[in-house]
């Protein structure tokens, strides 16, 4: 059973073809990493999946339903959550507030002017459980904007998790991090994947992270899908080495 099925997805900006007939299936519980040189169209591909803008052609099937034309918030409501290359959080609110807003939206309370005591207690419980999952429970009262970069990223992932997603899209979760923080976030993603069985698609530059985490690696180059396979297959693929790994070495 596939969580996500993408067929021949294309996005043009004027004369530029940012994404060219890319197809990708993600199985339930799979962790799929997307790699590729700068400008390969990785983030554009993510923006198409999450509904930031519509594709020029192609279809996106999520949990068996065609979501190609749905707005962002409708995709989120169906269980798709994402994080960004540059962390998107509510900096002037506490960690707890950040996750609470996500939790309340996920519980369908976003238009409510009032919720009862039992519902409030239930929301609090969920927030605490989510914070524990990302090891931020001791920092619940801190302003997110004042946290270290790695913790901010963990808070963003917590907000995504609070939406109870069927699919997590993580755009460069370790971008701009030192070794310690990279390790911390990698362990977190590994835990989410192995223990909580989340389906995850992530974009990543750090090959150590990719080879440590991924069940499958997809290589994008100049908007096209160059190769897909296990990390070992990708490492041995000559076309990939030429386009990307060779270039990096």
């Amino acid at each position, binding site marked *: 059973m596939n969580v996500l099925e993408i067929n021949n997805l294309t996005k043009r900006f004027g004369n530029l073809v940012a994404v060219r007939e890319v197809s990708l299936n993600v199985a339930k519980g799979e962790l799929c990493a997307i790699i590729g040189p700068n400008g390969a169209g990785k983030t554009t591909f993510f923006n198409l999946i999450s509904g930031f803008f519509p594709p020029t052609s192609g279809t996106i099937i999520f949990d068996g339903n065609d979501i190609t034309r749905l707005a962002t918030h409708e995709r*989120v409501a169906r269980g798709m959550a994402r994080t960004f290359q540059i962390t*998107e*959080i*509510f900096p002037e609110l506490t960690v707890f507030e950040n996750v609470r*807003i996500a939790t*309340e939206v996920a519980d369908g309370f976003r238009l409510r*002017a009032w*919720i009862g005591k039992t519902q409030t207690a239930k929301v609090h419980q969920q927030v605490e459980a989510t914070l524990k999952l990302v090891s931020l429970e001791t920092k619940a009262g801190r302003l997110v904007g004042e946290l270290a970069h790695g913790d901010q990223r963990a808070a963003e992932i917590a907000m995504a998790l609070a939406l109870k997603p069927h699919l997590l899209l993580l755009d460069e979760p370790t971008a701009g991090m030192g070794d310690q923080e990279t390790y911390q976030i990698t362990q977190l993603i590994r835990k989410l994947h192995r223990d909580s069985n989340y389906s995850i698609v992530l974009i990543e530059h750090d090959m150590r992270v990719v080879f440590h985490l991924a069940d499958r690696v997809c290589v994008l180059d100049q908007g096209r899908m160059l190769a897909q396979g296990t990390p070992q297959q990708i490492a041995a693929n000559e076309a990939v080495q030429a386009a990307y790994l060779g270039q990096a070495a």
Partner: protein
Amino acid sequence: MQSRKLIVLAAIWAVLLLAPYWMVPLGGYTALATRVLVLGLAAMSLNFLLGFTGVLSFGHAAYFGLGAYGAGLTLKYLALSTPLAIVAGMLLGGLCGAILGTLIVRRRGVYFAMVTIAFGQVFYYIAFQWSSLTGGDDGLRGFARQPLDFGLLKLDILTDANSFYYFVLFCFALVVGAMGFILRSPFGRTMIAIRENERRSRFLGIPVERHIWIAFTLSCFFMGAAGALYALVNNFADPRGLHYSQSGDFVMMAVMGGMRSFWGPLLGAAVFVVLQDYLSSVTVNWMSFVGLLFVLVVLFFPRGLLGFFQRSRA
């Protein structure tokens, strides 16, 4: 922390409840306190949108003025009832806001502000030109607030300044209570989420435009109520109450008082109204001094007067 908030809240309401008794010895008069309340309510209504949803409307005087005309026209032509006049003003401001809001909320930033000004000016010119109904440039006259009759208890809000002050304070409390209640609800938190980070809000599954529309509409209802009270304060409705310069005054009160704080705009309105009252008897150029103060506040206390106090306490 929680108890400290309660003490501050109790202090604010005590100051408001006792205003007629401490204003007069300080050289003020009750009607001045009433004006502060009404304009403060308007500034707080604007700030419901500006400070807590993060979108700047520069045409909110339109809904304030519509509230005033709604109340005035009701008293003049429909029914001699003060509560009915307030409800009518509130509905007129709120419903017009709801309709125009559907067009306005698609824009952001400067464009949002420009579109709100444009729609606001439409109402100004309607009030200005439609003399047979609105009295045109002279404003709407020929109506007066009516005494309240509760059967056993009659409250003469027309001639007794203190009774009228407490009536306005009661209405103020209802509207401000509604604002506070909403801001503390899940919906209120989505407003703050949109202010903090629109993209994140969208990717949490919040339909941002719809939520801004609801916040805009609520803000227009509150603004309509403030405008209706303003018509009752003066027994007069003025087309200049719809003009964008009036909108600018409200923005000034909110920013000066502190747009990130709930009560800031009330403080801003108090400073504005009291300065206006005092300075306009000294010089016709009173607005230059208010403007100077505004510039100083923005330069040195960017979070507004109340924001400054809150920060220095923390």
